[in-house]
């Protein structure tokens, strides 16, 4: 393998390009019309246009991508995350075309991609799942009422066809359950045309903790310990850290979760890098949530604490070599945190922000890593996800990592789009975050950017000074235009007035 096509864009395409370059492998980029000037196009040895900006016309065109791979002589395709990364049919098409897919076998992607199959497969392998009746088909109210005490309260009634909280009810005890079943069915019927519901144990104070695994073709599977990703908003991860402050020193729990993750991966004959996501309740019971059969956005924090370059291992595995590490080589060194820097305005409902990056200063220095696909002059378009950079720090301890993240966030300057950096700054100041006291509902239910500022020194008078000075200068500039106009032509005068009027 001496040439790899990267079927992705943005920071992850750049990340993979870097790994290839450091391995002496040639690279082929693909790009949409919106991405002609993207870093991945600039950094690659070869670059081919896929089509118009929308993903379905470009980065989702598996057929074109395979054709480009063949034409350019690339022997392998790295899919990154998103787009085609978890499409078993694409992995299969690569295989059919005689191109290595840097990831698991199509069968493993398919098995883990179907929720019911995944659940039943891992149950069969002895992996705990969130107790419930999902996957048992349509059950009557009587059946559900009978099984509910076995699952235990509180529990959730969920619509089989559902999503987005529609047809979902939280049930505290058996007495209120019949009425709630009825209303859930009614809502599910009206929302999805399907009144079927199932029961699921409500995991209270749930933490999202995932285990990174690596598996080679020789049958070796190891786990690279956990990442905690409970800081989420609308199921989008915003901050991840490794190790998990919740697991902390509980090496027994860490090991049990790691072994279960390995077992889940092995149950589908998994090869390459993957992640098993768990929900962990406050009593440290953990439940299989799903498996991501690809590289994760947040893989760098695992790299920083273990020293393993996950992308290089992926390529190594795809080449048919043995893993560079055995389980006993994997240690945890210090702590790492990742903040996802999104082009969205935290003061305006996290609405995406687009535009040209006019100016940027990256935080650098000891213990700071920035994975990004953007640069000054690059245009953030509305076509793709708002992730513009991953700011990752390492510290000898979690406390040091938080302090380092604070200074890095404060150093980061991006002009041209609004970013969620202030959100991350507020989070790094939050006493609950600092104490590791958070769960998956924390951001949405118990976090406010205004509240956490309490611990901070505020400088409203400095802000007043700044605003006044800028306003004053802005006015002085306008006045100057008018004055210049008076000496020049009368047109200028009216331009000046017009500007002032329309300020």
């Amino acid at each position, binding site marked *: 393998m001496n040439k790899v096509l990267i079927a992705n864009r943005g920071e992850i395409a750049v990340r993979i390009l870097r790994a290839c370059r450091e391995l002496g492998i040639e690279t082929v980029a693909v790009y949409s019309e919106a991405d002609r000037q993207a870093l991945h196009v600039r950094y690659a040895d070869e670059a081919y246009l896929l089509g118009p900006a929308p993903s379905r016309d470009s980065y989702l065109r598996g057929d074109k991508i395979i054709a480009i791979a063949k034409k350019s002589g690339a022997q392998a395709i790295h899919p990154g995350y998103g787009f085609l990364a978890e499409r078993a049919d694409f992995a299969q098409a690569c295989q059919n075309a005689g191109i290595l897919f840097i990831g698991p076998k199509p069968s493993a992607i398919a098995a883990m991609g179907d929720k019911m199959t995944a659940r039943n497969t891992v149950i069969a392998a002895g992996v705990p799942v969130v107790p419930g009746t999902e996957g048992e088909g349509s059950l009557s109210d009587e059946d559900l009422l009978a099984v509910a005490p076995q699952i235990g309260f509180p529990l959730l009634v969920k619509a089989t066809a559902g999503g987005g909280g529609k047809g979902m009810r939280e049930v505290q005890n058996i007495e209120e359950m019949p009425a709630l079943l009825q209303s859930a069915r009614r809502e599910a019927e009206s929302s999805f045309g399907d009144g079927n519901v199932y029961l699921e144990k409500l995991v209270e104070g749930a933490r999202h903790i995932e285990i990174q695994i690596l598996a080679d073709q020789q049958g070796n599977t190891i786990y690279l310990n956990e990442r905690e990703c409970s800081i989420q908003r609308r199921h989008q991860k915003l901050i991840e850290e490794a190790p998990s402050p919740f697991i902390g020193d509980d090496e027994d729990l860490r090991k049990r979760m790691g072994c279960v993750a390995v077992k889940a991966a092995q149950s589908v004959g998994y090869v390459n890098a993957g992640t098993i996501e768990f929900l962990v309740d406050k009593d440290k019971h953990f439940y299989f949530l799903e498996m991501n059969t690809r590289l994760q956005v947040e893989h760098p924090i695992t790299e920083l604490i273990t020293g393993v370059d996950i992308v290089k291992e992926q390529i190594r595995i795809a080449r048919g070599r043995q893993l560079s590490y055995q389980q006993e080589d994997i240690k945890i060194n210090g702590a790492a945190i990742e903040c996802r820097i999104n082009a969205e305005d935290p*003061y305006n409902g996290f609405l995406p922000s687009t535009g040209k990056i*006019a*100016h940027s200063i990256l935080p650098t220095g000891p213990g700071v890593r920035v994975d990004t696909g953007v640069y000054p002059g690059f245009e953030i378009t509305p076509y793709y996800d708002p992730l513009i950079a991953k700011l990752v720090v390492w510290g000898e301890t979690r406390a040091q990592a938080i302090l380092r993240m604070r200074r890095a*966030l*404060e150093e980061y*300057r991006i*002009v041209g789009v609004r970013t969620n*950096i*202030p959100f*991350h*700054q*507020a989070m790094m*100041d939050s006493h609950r975050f600092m104490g590791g006291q958070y769960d998956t509902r924390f951001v949405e239910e118990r976090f406010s950017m205004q509240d956490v*500022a309490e611990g*901070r020194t*505020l*400088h*409203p*008078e*400095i*802000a*007043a*000074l*700044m*605003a*006044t*000075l*800028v*306003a*004053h200068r*802005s*006015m002085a500039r306008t*006045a100057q235009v008018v004055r210049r106009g008076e000496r020049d032509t009368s047109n200028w005068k009216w331009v000046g*007035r017009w500007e*002032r*009027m329309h*300020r």
Partner: protein
Amino acid sequence: MKYVTTIDNQEYALEILDEHHIRLGEQTLTVDFESVSGQPVFSLIVDGKSYEAYVYPEEDGWQVLMQGRLYPARVEDEREKRLRAAAGSTVSESAEYHLKSPMPGLVVLIPVAEGDRVEKGQVLVILESMKMQNELKSPRAGIVHRIRVKPGEGVEQRQTLLSVQ
């Protein structure tokens, strides 16, 4: 130049004395204020303390983003503050609104005519005063009537200029 800047309902009285001196309330501060790389990023050194912030214009003022905290600010000079006070004191969504001159001046332009439908915030009269042109805006939507002045005319403080109903 004197300003009143409002942040979180707190008013700060500021006076720009010269390039490097500002009065804030009773204090006189030594300031060194620069835009960085020609961007809306500003570095302020005030009596030895170093601050940096993004300052963005907003429809109704400025946003100051400093140390991970957003301060929405309204900056008004004396004239603007009087304009706003004048507008505020007579506004009422139902009753007829009489636009009164907030200061003595010269009518430069009346970009509306009797019978015109105007939106809230639309400019009714441009008045020259304190060597600046000031826009007098409608505090509500309505129909313009009874325009009592014309361009070129001098007006007194609190003189009624026109009405919106």
